[in-house]
């Protein structure tokens, strides 16, 4: 795997005796959609936290595009092109959807020590922001306050915010959390389009979506990688079946 965009080497993290990451080894190749699945408490969100820079690992190394980013602060990783979405929508609720996306554009348009011009009138911020909203299907809701958007629209905006930073890689933490079947289907369509342009690490509980989208899947249980491979291999893996027994039988079908 010479062409890995993201390399996770021997990543370990403990929280007061609970092992959240147990020497994780993982490589995400350029252009692939790599899904990480696992039962609740497997340490998926902790993994994203370490990749995004919010959680410092106890040991191990994270490389992005060849460079070591293990010790970089959150904003620097974003500047390098690593964008994340949040499991629980984390938006600017008093701003409009367009304002939200425009802020993400602004973050990558040089420094923001510009004190005079009205930022809401700057085409170089508004146009790319509008494009990001259009991309996720929120174009018609651009001028609506985020506090008035529906849950599904919040999830779409989460993706739009990440896209507006013009990333090279997306870290998506359960983008379909709390969505109805129709909204989920729309999200799957969107992710299928996005994976043509971007490398994606996807954490998701919706197995149907995962198996429909993923090029490769890594299974995490109690912070440990128990399997990693193509969807068909994962589906056939007895250890995976055991880990999921009694929780989700969906692994077997599809």
């Amino acid at each position, binding site marked *: 795997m010479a062409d890995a965009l993201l390399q996770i080497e021997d990543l370990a993290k403990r929280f007061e005796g609970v092992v959240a990451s147990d020497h994780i080894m993982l490589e995400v190749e350029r252009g692939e959609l790599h899904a990480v699945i696992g039962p609740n408490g497997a340490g998926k969100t902790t993994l994203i936290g370490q990749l*995004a820079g*919010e959680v410092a690992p106890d040991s191990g190394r994270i490389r992005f595009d060849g460079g070591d980013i293990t010790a970089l*602060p*959150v*904003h620097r990783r*974003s*500047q390098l092109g690593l*964008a*994340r979405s*949040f499991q629980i929508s*984390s*938006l*600017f*609720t*008093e*701003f409009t959807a367009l*304002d939200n996306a*425009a*802020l*993400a554009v*602004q*973050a*990558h348009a040089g420094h*923001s*020590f*510009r*004190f*005079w*011009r*009205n*930022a*809401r009138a*700057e085409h170089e*911020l508004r146009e790319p922001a509008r494009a990001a909203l259009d991309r996720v299907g929120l174009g018609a809701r651009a001028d609506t306050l985020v*506090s*008035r958007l529906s849950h599904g629209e919040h999830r779409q905006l989460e993706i739009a*915010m*990440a896209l*507006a*930073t013009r990333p090279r890689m997306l870290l998506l933490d359960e983008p379909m959390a709390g969505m109805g079947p129709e909204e989920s289907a729309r999200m799957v369509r969107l992710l299928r389009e996005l994976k043509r342009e971007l490398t994606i690490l996807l954490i998701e509980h919706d197995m149907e979506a995962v198996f429909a989208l993923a090029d490769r899947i890594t299974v995490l249980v109690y912070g440990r990688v128990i399997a990693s491979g193509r969807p068909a291999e994962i589906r056939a893996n007895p250890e995976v079946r055991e880990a999921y027994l009694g929780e989700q039988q969906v692994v077997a079908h599809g």
Partner: protein
Amino acid sequence: MSAVLNARHVVVAALLTILALLPLYTALTGNYFLLTLFTRIVILGMAATSLNLILGYGGMVSFGHAAYLGIGGYVVGILAKEGITSGFVQWPLALAISGLFALVIGALCLRTRGVYFIMITLAFSQMIYYVASSLAQYGGDDGLTINRRSQFIEPINLSNKTTFYYVCLIILVATIYLVWRLVNSRFGMVIQGARANDRRMRAIGFPTFRYRLVCFVIAGTLCGLSGVLIANHTDFVSPAMMHWTRSGDLIVMVVLGGMASSFGPLIGAVTLLLLEEVLSGVTEYWQIILGPLLLLVVLFARGGIDGLLEQAAAWRPVKVADPSAGLGHG
């Protein structure tokens, strides 16, 4: 949004008109009491406007903002005592020193959040308060009388009450305009974003600390200018002007008038100081009346007086245009 006259615009326009024409009334009646009172209101309104930049827009609840009133004032007082009365020296120096203090205090305080931030800003302002109290050669606890106001070239003579009032008023309006430009610029979007959701700001690539620090310095510098004006207004500086209760007054003005609103702090300053003036004439315990009033604002009018005006303004047009659009308003 629309250019239609609404309650909010009417109140702001009326307030500005009254402020602009006040000296006319004074000239006609020869009664300087109101002019003196309103000079004070205008100066503190400007201090509150500077606090609003960090508190209202930036979510940084500084409980030590009056320290910059004191710093600005003391620079003028100390320089005057040492024989340097030129405003061209005093004012820039006062601004620079206020800004420098804000830089140091902000660099330390902004590493904390919430209650810790409030307590540390309070601690710093109290430290400065005690330092000023111990400046024996500059009056210590008793304060320092300023014999000569800042000197500028003709026709700006700050000893003339009307001129001084207009200088203060122009600076206030300029400050409100400056803050309005700031909060709507790219810089302002970062500041507001960091108030609403600092975690997300960092996730999309903003190093928020440096922006918040610059905002803190701008607010401190502007408040230092208020201090310069206060010192010239009262011809006197003392540690009392940076006591923590003064910082509290400034917060009350901002909250009462309306956080994150352009004219809110001015409205708050006018309301608070006029109430103080009127109520203290009625009873010595006027704060017993002010307290519950403030409680009502905090409980029922989150946006302060300006928020109430905005709701009043939004009510009618919305009802006519689209009955369903108003449902979201709380």
